[in-house]
């Protein structure tokens, strides 16, 4: 992945030297040409074409913003109600992610999603303990959100 990005930058600089014009637009043209070359020769590299991963990261960021705004609307609706129908609970969520940065990213995502907050990560880092503000009806929905997040993170790290 990083090797492909380095190679793409190298091709872009090569293009600048070939055309003898050193400015940003030439660099962009060279970068696009390099991405095309890498796409054509993608069979020779180990791993996936790196633009796929860049696209997965962009999708993850968009998902993140959507969930952040939904989370805040939910908190707003909970707080302005006179009776505040909340049922707090701490539940365990088994995770299939293994690397440390993946688990950190997942807990950040969970903390910013509707009504959940990561309290603790177990010592073998296979389980996350999550505080939910409105447990019960939200359990299935929360689990499905976790599945989409976990899927999106796996899509990035695969």
């Amino acid at each position, binding site marked *: 992945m990083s090797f492909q990005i380095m190679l793409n930058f190298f091709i872009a600089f090569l293009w600048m030297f070939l055309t003898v014009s050193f400015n940003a637009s030439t660099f962009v043209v060279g970068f696009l040409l390099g991405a095309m070359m890498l796409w054509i020769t993608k069979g020779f590299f180990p791993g996936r074409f790196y633009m796929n991963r860049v696209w997965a990261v962009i999708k993850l960021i968009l998902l993140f913003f959507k969930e*952040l*705004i939904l*989370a*805040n609307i939910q*908190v*707003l609706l909970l*707080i*302005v109600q006179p009776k*505040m129908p*909340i*049922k*707090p*609970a*701490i*539940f*365990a969520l088994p995770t299939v992610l293994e690397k440390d940065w993946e688990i950190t990213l997942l*807990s*950040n995502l969970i*903390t*910013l999603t509707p*009504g959940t*907050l*990561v*309290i*603790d990560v*177990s*010592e073998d880092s296979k389980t996350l*303990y999550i*505080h939910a*503000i409105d*447990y*019960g009806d939200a359990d299935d929905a929360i689990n499905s959100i976790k599945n989409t997040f976990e899927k999106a993170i796996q899509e990035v790290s695969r």
Partner: protein
Amino acid sequence: MTMILANILIGVTVSLGVIFILVTAIGLIRLPDIYCRTHAASKSATLGVMFILLGVFLHFWLIEGIVNTRIILGIVFLFITGPVGGHVIGRSAYLSGVKMWDQSVKDELAPVIAERKKLDEQK
């Protein structure tokens, strides 16, 4: 015309930010225990400050013509550190034995922590 649109955009972002910060403040007063309060504090405060910073950035960009990248960096840093702060507060509260609200439904962490303490004593 574009000036009016820009002003509307800036007004909407800043007001949204203020509304979310107001929600944070009300939540901090009304919610029953520290964990629920951390929900309000970590989510709404993050988004509120982010919206206000976005409004400031748009004002200086669209009205004054200055692109200040420091504000963008501020938004990114808040975005990363806000949830971590909430997590650390919640975790340290739990480990130092702060009780959850008495109407809480379920607590799956308590046996794990008890087990961990027992292991520590054996060492």
